[in-house]
């Protein structure tokens, strides 16, 4: 990592901390080594001690803190996902997560706008724009909000439900939608995902086919994933079991359920939470095209 990228990264993390401290969030540290993550179809934890895993996200423990009465919390922590390595992926990476009680996903979208504008002021040179590949992204011009359904029909002339049925969702998203989002010179929020794509999100009160989930894109790069939290323990258990069935059907080992978390949901307030990739945020601030450019060491060099 170049000297200036190291400074930029440190400054950015300091700015993120300041942002949340100034807004009354409590900075927390939760254990990275846990007996169970939230089982997901396509995320594989790194296993360590017999029957323990490294966190794929600090969500389980942070949501339990909401259940015990904390209203606004944030954490910057390392997360591990097995076999994920590419120009935007590392198996070990840095995640920023924040959670708010008594809010829904719209509040988080507002937080994202304020946070990126704050980072632009603290960390970016004159023009205040984030960079990805050849795109410049200005966080101060009005942000685009596009539903997933609309994005598929507008950019891909396709029906998202149809794509899901045919198993083409990811291909269309990567080859058509993300390049289209890269054309915007403002950040873009994709929102309202098909319910099956949001294992821990609440569905809309007037439409149980749509989940209150959103993803933030800058220059076509996926930066954050947030949602209104599902607080129904029975429904949550059903979804975890469903994820494990998908895993078993595709030859992946089923994962243990995080029982204390499911139990804690009984007391979980209405809330919303979001995960943002810190490495990708540094990439956008540094204008780096590969994650390798903004970390101290890559696994291949260890």
């Amino acid at each position, binding site marked *: 990592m170049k000297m200036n990228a190291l400074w930029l990264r440190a400054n950015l993390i300091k700015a993120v901390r300041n942002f949340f401290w100034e807004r009354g969030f409590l900075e927390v540290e939760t254990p990275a080594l846990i007996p169970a993550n939230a089982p997901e*179809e396509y995320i594989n934890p790194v296993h360590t001690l017999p029957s323990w895993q490294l966190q794929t996200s600090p969500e389980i423990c942070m949501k339990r803190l909401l259940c015990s009465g904390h209203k606004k919390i944030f954490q910057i922590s390392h997360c591990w996902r097995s076999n994920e390595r590419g120009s935007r*992926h590392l198996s070990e990476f840095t995640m920023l997560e924040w959670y708010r009680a008594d809010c829904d996903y719209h509040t988080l979208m507002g937080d994202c706008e304020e946070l990126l504008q704050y980072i632009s002021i603290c960390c970016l040179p004159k023009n205040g724009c984030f960079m990805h590949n050849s795109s410049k992204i200005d966080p101060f011009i009005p942000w685009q909000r596009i539903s997933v359904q609309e994005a598929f029909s507008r950019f891909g002339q396709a029906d998202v439900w149809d794509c899901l049925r045919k198993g083409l969702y990811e*291909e269309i*998203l*990567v080859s058509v939608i993300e390049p289209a989002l890269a054309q915007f010179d403002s950040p873009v929020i994709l929102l309202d995902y098909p319910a099956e794509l949001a294992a821990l999100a609440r569905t809309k009160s007037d439409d149980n086919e749509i989940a209150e989930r959103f993803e933030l894109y800058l220059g076509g790069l996926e930066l954050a994933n947030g949602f209104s939290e599902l607080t129904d323990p029975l429904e949550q258990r059903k979804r975890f079991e469903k994820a494990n069935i998908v895993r078993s059907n595709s030859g992946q080992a089923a994962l243990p359920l995080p029982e204390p978390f499911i139990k804690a949901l009984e007391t979980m307030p209405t809330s919303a939470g979001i995960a943002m990739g810190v490495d990708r945020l540094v990439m956008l601030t540094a204008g780096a095209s590969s994650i390798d450019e903004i970390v101290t060491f890559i696994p291949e060099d260890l």
Partner: protein
Amino acid sequence: MYTVADLKKGLKIILDGDPYLVVAFDFVKPGKGQALYRTKMRNMVNGTLLDRTYRSGETFDPASLEERQMEYLYKEGEHYTFMDQQTYEQVVMEEETLGEAKNYLLENLKVEVMLFGEKAIGISLPNFVNLRVTGTEPWAKGDTSGNDSKPATVETGYVLRVPPFIEEGELIVIDTRNGEYSTRVKG
């Protein structure tokens, strides 16, 4: 057998019966979805580029390519014949497959022939070859026109620019990597 996760730049695989070289590779995983692998590959027979996206679980056979030293024998029309001097086995290559390499092929030149199974798909030449000049204008002594090179034809029929002092019948060294005159063979 490779799985898609084993692919990386520089790896050679078989696709639709042809050998391909992986020239770019990336792992992508959109929003908690399934992992996808985006690849760019070059067909090692005809040079065309191919973009393909794969899901995890796809498998590929490695393209085993063999480089063997052979001697260039002769050409007949557009067919060039090479022979392995150990086994006396002969292979034939089309002019199109050889590309620029045909400019330096003089009988008995030793080259590395790239074989995909039985099929010859390319050759690597020595970096420098010696070829005799078969035709060029004589050097007009006292020429002050300022031209510091002139065209010359060598024994393979290849035409290149050489310095004005090179005479017909001389042996010159040509750099096969860029096709340019390198130096004159003294004596």
